[in-house]
């Protein structure tokens, strides 16, 4: 696979290193001259100097034959533009953008830049997952594929507690995939009884979170 990586910071160069160790071809683009010079010592021909938001530089990097573009610079506006150019001008099969500031997530979504990766949001999900009582947590978002996996907890007093799966009617577009009970995963069947404290993993179409949350609260 040939991957163009925009941005040679910690994320970009670690990504490049791993991809190369798995026999992928990589071209990293770095716009800071001093950082570029340091990178050449390790990456040699697999790094080039330039602003990855300039179409000319993307062409020099070989974007036309890229299988994947990863826009992982420290600037959200740059990552958005790089992915838009990759998708709409060069028709790259897959482009992935890093979201630096989670507050900009909606901008990526509105402008159709997907999938995105945000370290802050991932950390937040992991921390929420560990909290004793937590609301719905997103574990995986695949917007383009119209799919997401969430985790919801059955609270004490939830109308779903002590009900069998076959007794509840799930909203359309929602499927239960697993029950985490006492740190073990159960594959649910119709006869499986839900208990307070269970954490439910569900697969659903994006936008159905509210229906699911309501169902857990009101039955």
């Amino acid at each position: 696979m040939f991957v163009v990586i925009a941005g040679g910071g910690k994320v970009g160069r670690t990504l490049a290193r791993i991809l190369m160790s798995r026999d992928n071809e990589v071209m990293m683009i770095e716009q800071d001259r001093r950082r570029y010079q340091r990178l050449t010592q390790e990456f040699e021909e697999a790094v080039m100097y330039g602003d990855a938001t300039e179409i000319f530089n993307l062409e020099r990097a070989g974007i036309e034959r890229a299988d994947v573009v990863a826009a992982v610079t420290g600037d959200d506006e740059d990552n958005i533009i790089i992915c838009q150019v990759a998708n709409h001008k060069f028709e790259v099969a897959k482009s992935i953008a890093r979201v630096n500031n989670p507050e900009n997530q909606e901008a990526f979504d509105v402008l159709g830049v997907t999938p995105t990766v945000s370290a802050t949001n991932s950390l937040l999900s992991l921390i929420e997952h560990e909290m004793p009582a937590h609301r719905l947590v997103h574990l995986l978002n695949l917007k383009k594929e119209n799919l997401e996996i969430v985790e919801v907890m059955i609270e004490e007093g939830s109308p779903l507690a002590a009900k069998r799966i076959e007794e509840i009617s799930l909203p359309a577009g929602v499927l239960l995939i697993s029950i985490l009970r006492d740190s073990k995963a159960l594959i649910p069947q119709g006869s499986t009884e839900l208990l307070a404290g269970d954490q439910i993993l569900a697969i659903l179409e994006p936008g159905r979170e509210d229906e699911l949350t309501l169902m857990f609260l009101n039955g």
Partner: protein
Amino acid sequence: MYVVIVGCGRVGSALALGLVEEGHKVAVVDEDEDALLRLGEDFPGEFVHGVGIDIKALQRVHTENADAFVAATDGDNTNLVAAQLAKERFGVRCVVTRVYDPHRARFFKEQMGIRTICPTADTINLLATAVRTCEVNP
């Protein structure tokens, strides 16, 4: 007319002052609070401290009510993202943005439907015309 301008440098501030003088309502967004100085003490419009790609900042100036939106910061990518948000997220009909890089300006104009103004391309044309019309003295 209500106009939102992102970027209060030489261009954004002069545009804001000109529009206000013509009787339009204007709001200006800039990431540098001192940029307000360019507008003068009597500026009757609104000034909001914020970044153009921040949807919350655009909400604060009620971009959804804007008749026109101008992105004129010194960053091409900031301008392109802000302009697209104004169009797609806030539904502003008239969106104009400055983009220095002629290639990005052309791509976003032709393929992404954003009205870009490229000072670099304009300067090249002006210089070329000036050269072509030079009277060469032997």
